[in-house]
């Protein structure tokens, strides 16, 4: 692992730790707020078919890739 990768990894672990700790410190939603959290537009990808096509396009035109999923294959994109 390069120095840059190590630095990125450490930041990732730190942020996840902060997020986890903050969740344990009284940020519980009220009962009526559960409905807000469950509305479709709060989803990570409310329109997954469109999101998949956009991601496929960016992946074929840019060097960077990677997300919170393992699905999908590559392409012989020109």
């Amino acid at each position, binding site marked *: *692992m*390069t120095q*840059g*990768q190590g630095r*990125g*990894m450490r*930041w*990732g*672990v730190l*942020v*996840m730790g902060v*997020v*986890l700790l*903050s*969740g344990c410190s009284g*940020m*519980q*939603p*009220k009962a*009526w*707020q*559960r*409905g*807000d*959290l*469950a*509305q*479709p*537009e*709060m*989803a*990570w*990808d*409310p*329109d*997954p*078919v*469109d*999101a*998949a*096509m956009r991601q496929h*396009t*960016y992946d074929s*035109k*840019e*060097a*960077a*890739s*990677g*997300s*919170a*999923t*393992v*699905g*999908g*294959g*590559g*392409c*012989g994109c*020109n």
Partner: protein
Amino acid sequence: MPPKKMPSAPLNQALLALTASALAIPGMSAQAQDLAGDPMPSAPRDSTLLDYRFSYYDEGHIAGSKTSSGQDSERYSVESHQFRIATRLGPKADLTADATVETMSGASPWFILPDIKGKPVQVMSGASIHDFRQALQVRANERFGAVTGSVLAGYSNERDYRGANGGLEGSWDFNNKLTTLSGGVGYTHNDLDPTEGASMRFPTRIAHADNYEVNSYAGLAQVLGGETVLQSSVSFTYQNGYLSDPYKMAYVAGNTVNDARPGNRRKLAWVTRLRQNVAALDAVVHLDYRYYHDDWGITAHTAELAWYQTLPWSWALVPRVRWYSQSQADFYQPYYNAAQNNGLYSSDYRLSPFGALSESLGVYKRLGSWNLSLRYEHYSSGSAYSIRSIEVENPALVRFQVFSAGIVKTF
């Protein structure tokens, strides 16, 4: 008694059928899946969603001032048809299948020459390329109390390329269902059989090659009060095998040689996503950021902001802006004045330093059990959008536009 927020019915209606299995809000998994995720809110568990999407991708021509011929050159266009079916397999299981059929045509950047002043100018592939891609991706999810397990498999086929992938994912809700820990591992194998490989016309082009990819990720999602959800995840990918582009060449001190990249690559991506409900405006803000680094020396930043605005009469509007910036691969040069000791050559614009900006607008409309959508996107790349100043811009940097239209039916 706290004020009870009126449900944002129009956008809920407009997007309910489009959410499929993408909902992963911590603590809301079961409820959200019932409400919208799979894919029917209060519909019977044996309901089914069918989604069809047509997209037209069109790259802008490359200007004559950037080509070796001095003539404008056409570039790529792609027509895509996407089909999705999502259905329950039982009280705790569901299945999603995505099929894609694409036709591609146009010219592609081949190699770069220096002009008389040393300015890089692009040589495009001569004949127009025509190809056809078919892909199928299947995902099955099953819930075991607070734990959800997923199995994924997929296949992609082109005339000169075949890829197969499989993977396992899992998630666990805890902390009173306010926190979700998720992770996954995947494997992909690709076979390449380039057109006219080892032919009389292209004797140095490879006839066959393959590569594989192993990737994994771990993420944590957290409810931050009643209006905010945050997710942060780290993914690591290892690629091994033939990772060069068989259709590209590099100019090296008066000669052209095959594009030649390292035989392996390690990629790290750290993705953070925020979803913020704006109750007063009946809207939701999406903010995503990705940091990327690989051992080819590329560091990239991606930031994306989207606004999901509910409108009366079951309409919704989704403007989106995305910014991207990357540094170059260590071995990249637009052209080479001398042979390299490491034997690595690539002038591919995708490994060059650049930035990009895209703007998009989506419109959604619900009509009973049908959903309609339209989207337009414009993407432009260049040195002006880069986070760092760029001395020599690759002449093949792309700009494109995408039109898409979709229709969804829930049963």
